């Protein structure tokens, strides 16, 4: 067994030399290509050529699916970061001392490669270390970076790449200064200041309006106590199907919720609070006895019904909850 392995390993370079050009020439080929445009746009053929076994350079390939019909949001989000990384690496390493190539293989051009690698997901980054030369690594398998932790920045991929490389120049990611952003932000701030100065006579009474502030505070309180921050952090779906073609508005389980669900709950809280406020503040100010008793019964009924509904929703979420109010 051992012998066989050794034998095949020692034969490999010969087959390669027999089949293709020497790695030196290949390196020069890709070097000139990458100087004109990086990351290299690869297809099946050039991918195989670039990552062929005897190589004295490292290759980092992003396997991605950019076309809209694949619906890979992560791929498209990451693409600018990837190009930034490749550009700043190549620019920072003009002499090519690090001997690293960056390549992009789109699914449209590299269907066979995806199949042979048995890739189910994209994007994936593969890193091939050199197999010959001073920096050769024994392990011929490429290291693989999966985007399990969500979208990545150029810096984090840079850190990953440089971890796998031996000593040598590792040009840092240099983000171009976004002049457009600076100008637009400055303009916006100046515009805002002008707007505030001009409209101050109209805005100040508005700012001092107590009803406005009350509305703001109440909306904030209702929003937060109905679990809006949970939606924001966990990015829950708005509604979801119930498996029978209908829509289920309430998520099952105590620590789970839908976006629509929280809005319903916030509305219930709002109605209950408003009814309480009416009972406490408005009703005693109604001067007509008939209208007053009508209002009392109306608001009491609203509170009762809504609270009953709220408890029934809560029983849905928490199966063992024993309390209820009659209608629901």
């Amino acid at each position, binding site marked *: 067994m051992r012998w066989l392995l050794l034998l095949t390993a020692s034969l490999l370079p010969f087959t390669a030399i027999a089949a293709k050009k020497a790695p030196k020439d290949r390196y020069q080929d890709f070097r000139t290509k990458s100087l004109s445009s990086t990351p290299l746009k690869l297809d099946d053929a050039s991918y195989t050529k670039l990552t062929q076994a005897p190589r004295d350079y490292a290759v980092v390939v992003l396997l991605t699916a950019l076309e809209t019909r694949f619906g890979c949001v992560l791929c498209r989000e990451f693409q600018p970061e990837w190009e930034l990384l490749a550009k700043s690496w190549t620019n920072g390493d003009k002499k090519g001392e690090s001997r690293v190539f960056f390549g992009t293989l789109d699914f449209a051009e590299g269907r066979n490669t995806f199949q042979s690698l048995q890739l*189910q997901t994209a994007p994936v980054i593969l890193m091939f270390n050199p197999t010959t030369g001073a920096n050769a690594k024994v392990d011929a398998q490429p290291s693989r970076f*999966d985007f399990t932790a969500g979208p990545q920045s150029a810096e984090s991929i840079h850190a990953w790449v440089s971890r796998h490389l031996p000593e040598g120049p590792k040009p840092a990611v240099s983000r171009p200064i976004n002049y457009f952003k600076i100008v637009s932000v400055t303009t916006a701030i100046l515009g805002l200041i002008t707007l505030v100065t001009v409209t101050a006579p109209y805005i100040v009474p508005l700012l001092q309006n107590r009803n406005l502030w009350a509305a703001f505070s109440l909306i904030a309180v209702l929003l937060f*106590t109905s679990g809006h921050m949970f939606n924001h*952090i966990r990015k829950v779906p708005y509604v979801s199907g119930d498996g029978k073609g209908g829509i289920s508005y309430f998520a099952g389980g105590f620590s789970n919720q839908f976006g629509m669900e929280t809005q319903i709950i916030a509305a219930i809280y709002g109605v209950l609070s408003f009814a*309480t*406020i009416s009972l406490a*503040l408005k009703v005693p100010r109604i001067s007509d006895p008939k209208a007053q008793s009508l209002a*009392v019964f109306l608001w009491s009924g609203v509170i009762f019904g809504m609270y009953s509904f709220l408890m029934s929703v809560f029983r849905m979420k928490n199966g063992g909850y024993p309390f209820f109010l009659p209608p629901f």
Partner: protein
Amino acid sequence: MATSPVDPLLKQLTGPNTRSLLRVIILLTIAAAAVSSRLFSVIRFESIIHEFDPWFNFRATKYLVQNGFYSFWDWFDDRTWHPLGRVTGGTLYPGLMVTSGIIYHVLRFLTFPVDIRNICVLLAPGFSGLTAFATYLLTNEMVTSPSAGLLAAAFMGITPGYISRSVAGSYDNEAIAIFLLVFTFFLWIKAVKLGSVFWGALTALFYGYMVSAWGGYVFITNLLPLHAFVLICMGRYSPRLYVSYTSWYALGTLASMQIPFVGFLPIRSSEHMSALGVFGLLQIVGFVEFVRNQLPSRQFQTLLRALVLVIFAVSFGGLVLLTVSGVIAPWTGRFYSLWDTGYAKIHIPIIASVSEHQPTAWPAFFFDLSMMIWLFPAGVYMCFRKLTDEQVFIVIYAVLASYFAGVMVRLMLTLTPIVCVASAIAFSQILDTYMSIDSPTPEVQANGTPASASVAAASAMLPDGLRSTRNPIVGIYSYTSKLTVVAASTVYLMLFVMHCTWVTSNAYSSPSVVLASRLPDGSQHIIDDYREAYYWLRQNTPENAKIMSWWDYGYQIGGMADRPTLVDNNTWNNTHIATVGKAMSSREEVSYPIMRQHEVDYVLVVFGGLLGYSGDDINKFLWMVRIAEGIWPDEVKERNFFTARGEYRVDDEATPTMKNSLMYKMSYYNYNALFPAGQAQDRVRNTRLPAEGPQLTTIEEAFTSENWIIRIYKVKDLDNFGRDHGSAVAFDKGNKKKRAHKRKGARTLRVE
């Protein structure tokens, strides 16, 4: 509770003495109800310390009582975080331990023979009575209605949102901190109202006590300046505000710096900068006000206003500069994750891994606060009627605390007091209106004018009042309407009491050290595996045997088994925790050297597969992997623990990395033996396990508790013959030793 609605009726009584006597009795009853509803766990189980952190507090308190205050202050604990140790005296909030130490010594002085454990168990219920009283005081400062305070006290006494952290045995910092929080707010309101140095100093004193008790003091540190700042912005600057804020800030900051754990943070960390900034702003505003009184020239005032703006901008710029240059420490991770909610998940997995740092879904709000959750906005709205200085405080507190409670489950605790106060304001308003016996006659309509006049006077800055309070108050005409509302309110209150009792009894009274289950015949069965295992450790291992476990169990091992641990719930050293995570998630050949280097004698894992106990280590395992991956991204990879389809499995299809990890092996070692061949079942993950169980070579099973919840393994010493453990085990089993390498060719003489 049911007593407070009676209060308005008592207005018929003439003597104020009778009324205050009744009030005292009601408050005492509320305190008694608050204490007794927290005793479920003591009655059901026994007087025992709960959960995880309380075990450390208990251990520290015992140390304090045995060795005295000064040696507690200088305590270096070499039995945790082996081999690093922990400067315990300088890295804890000593308020809780010192409080119970004082109570212990006072009781001893009065010749009551009490055990320190009982003081620790009953401290939280005792303080909840005081919290109810403090809520009463705070609410009384907010509104004139005497019933609101009593109602708020009753709400505070029994609301599950507070009970969740203060049942008997839950000996944690929050036990006393919520009382201190509410009481400090009361003192602050008093100080702002009266503008007295005395009350300001008292605020500072209790603020100092709060700092010594709980890290949540930062909430006060930021809320009081915000209140002052909003008041200034509303044009409500007054000498009262100046006096109270200045005295609080100067004395309170000095007081907080006395705690070694806090030290110089109040002048160096960003969390405290708002307090400092408002302090400076108040000086400037005070100076400007003073000059304005001397010089009534209009131009000069404009100039001064510009001056204020310039100084403010310059100092803000300076602050930013100092932060960037690193003189002022940036936000700490926990605090920062409150604002940028995605921060912790990316940068600090150890914070994100704690279940109480998760965001709050709406059922949790209703569960903890019940009907108060919809009375709360109504109460906040009612504060806008007059919007006095102290009611501004309620509004700010309400909005801010709702946000925090929405972001982190544990901060529900800071929201609860204000919810109680606000909903008591709303509820008492209804009760006061509908429970008064006299009805107006329909013709007369002019008795509301004085009230609206005072509203107009109070809202000098905010010109118009609320839309709902423009008309004068008339009163309620018919008894039927009064009866309807009062009856409905009584039903809601009863329902509230029942809800609170049910939640307390079902959700918050489990010690989590002892588990309870029901047998088929309905009788209760106690599952006591934790203590069984910890006492086994205490009695069967040498006193200095080092125990490795995941950090959740560190405090319990220290408290119950009294053995040194590698990591514990004080998660101060992420790398050390990641080391343990790596040892747990790697192959035995990798883990063994790590364990040898850290002198580990025993490894403890929690396994719930037999019983269906879902809080076990296999379910927490991914966090260990993630935390380890944060430090060693090349050696531990989360991806390898998922199958190709992205599933986390433990059965036949589990990945090789998963099957070879130390944690997996330790959890399922010999588990097959319990079942007929090929039938081994994991009841937590509901899967059938592989027919062949994992084999262990470098460690051996030492102890497994009755229900298999705790499994303890002994780390083998180096082999006597210098073999590696794999071959030693193979030899013992009688397997024929494989030749390492066959010699090929003729032997040759080696010449060097």
